């Protein structure tokens, strides 16, 4: 096939004000702070790096065992181990900024005010391109039920964070809900600039020898290819009903998976568990998407966003 160098396909995407050089991001908690994967991939080529979930204070995380492989998937119960927002901003962020990485923070908290305070500290610093809001944490004020499962709590926390910052705010929806569209609309009502979906499904495993749950925390988040059908379905539903750009992911392992996510309405995609299996997956998928667009004479990645959705 002849390649017209002047017309190489457009890979830049705009995710609710967040500009990404290409639609491929790496998911929070699966790529550390970027440097962990530096030996394997040129991290500055990745569309965006969503760093490990950060809270106001440092957190030790859950007791081991924290991870376990399941059929075509894995469970994790890390428990948000992180050094706290200030350490992240002062010690880890600068080298990423220096390398021209598009950094997306992922923040979490147990009360709305915690989210707001983390946001204020991010706002004061420069260098973060957007905030992904992890709302799968227990809402201690609401008796421990996750923020992400209650539309009102979703709206409140998004609103609180939005009011503290000028950079795009992207709530990350939990799939453990009856009606994902209702939650997405609540996020929209709170002022979300885009939506990230999906976070992990809640699951567990049993060690039949010890007759005990495998994970120290009993429950953990299920990720990987196993959850891909659920992720695609939820993104399809939300794309159809809600007018916000979507950062889609859940089980992406190759360029075909990425295309499925884009076709159900994801403007950009995120790779989580896939990084563990193939540390060069982000680069591979960026190349693969570009090749696909060229082979099919598609001028911009945006042209295929949502094409599979029947309205």
């Amino acid at each position, binding site marked *: 096939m002849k390649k017209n160098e002047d017309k190489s396909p457009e890979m830049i995407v705009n995710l609710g004000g967040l500009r990404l050089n290409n639609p491929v991001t790496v998911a929070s908690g*699966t790529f*550390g702070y970027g440097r962990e*994967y530096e*030996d394997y991939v040129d991290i500055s080529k990745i569309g965006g790096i969503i760093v490990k979930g950060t809270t106001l204070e440092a957190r030790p995380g859950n*007791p*081991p065992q*924290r*991870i376990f492989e399941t059929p*075509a998937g894995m469970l994790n119960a890390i428990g948000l181990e992180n050094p706290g927002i200030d350490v992240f901003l002062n010690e880890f962020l600068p080298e990423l900024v220096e390398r021209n990485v598009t950094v997306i923070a992922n923040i979490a908290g147990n009360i709305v005010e915690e989210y707001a305070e983390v946001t204020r500290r991010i706002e004061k610093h420069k260098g973060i391109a957007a905030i992904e809001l992890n709302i799968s944490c227990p809402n201690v004020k609401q008796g421990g039920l996750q923020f992400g499962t209650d539309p009102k709590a979703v709206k409140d926390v998004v609103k609180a964070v939005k009011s503290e910052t000028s950079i795009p705010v992207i709530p990350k929806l939990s799939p453990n809900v009856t009606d994902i569209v209702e939650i997405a609309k609540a996020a929209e009502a709170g002022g979300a600039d885009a939506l990230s979906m999906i976070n992990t499904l809640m699951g567990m495993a049993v060690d039949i020898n010890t007759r005990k749950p495998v994970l120290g925390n009993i429950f953990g988040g299920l990720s990987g290819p196993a959850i891909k059908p659920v992720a695609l379905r939820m993104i399809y539903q939300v794309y159809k009903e809600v007018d916000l750009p979507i950062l889609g992911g859940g089980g992406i392992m190759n360029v075909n998976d990425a295309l499925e996510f884009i076709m159900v309405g994801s403007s950009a995609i995120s790779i989580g568990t896939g990084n563990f299996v193939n540390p060069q997956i982000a680069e591979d998928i960026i190349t693969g998407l570009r090749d696909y667009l060229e082979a099919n004479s598609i001028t911009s990645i945006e042209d295929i966003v949502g094409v599979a959705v029947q309205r």
Partner: protein
Amino acid sequence: MPSLANGLVVGHRKLSKDMYELEFIAPEIANECKPGQYINLKVGNELDPLLRRPLSLYDVDKRLGSITLLYKVVGKGTQILTRTKVKEYVDVMGPLGRGFKILEEKSNALLIGGGVGIAPLVYLARVLKDNNCNVQVLHGTDTKNNLVDFNKLEEIGVEYILATDDGSFGFKGFVTDFLKEKINPKEIDYIYCCGPEPMMAEVAKYALVNNIDGEVSLEEHMACGVGACLGCARKLKSKDELYVKVCKDGPVFNINEVELNK
């Protein structure tokens, strides 16, 4: 720099019922290897099993660019691995983690392995020997069948003592019994240990009592192998509230640093 490579399999053989030795060529990786480190291997090309399997460096030949693994079949992944044929490729990333401390010349090193825990100690023995240390290897297994390749240890030229639980070969009893009964702690400068945790706990106690320094190599379920996922956490004895990552801060830790499960 660690890297991702397709290793060309040049040797693969069954040593005993469930023990296999696999050798592959991956010069970029081999060249970076230090004893105590490990590689992460993808078994099969499918989504089940999904994650890479961590396996220690059993032996490395930098001249040939080859890495040898010693593995025990325990589950799905290692079972599939047995089907790998010579001339096929294995998908490997590494070397990963922090290796063993290499003692100064003339030091007296005692290497204690339990079961397949012997794997990292063999390459360590080679490097220590190359560094003119005195190396003694104690190895405990359940029975005579589960042996490593004696020839390799002979070739390296280290003293090798086997203890079998059932007495079918060598010393009858646990390797820790042998340690307490037959080893003179005064003659040991440093202990390296890898095996089941209760065994390592015993050895750690012995080291503490006899005031010998040393290192242990731990196992923990892993996803990334590079310190990114925080999945392989372990508590240190000293820091009550913070965890270390076995994949990156380890798998080798000071013998008195970590809490070992009994």
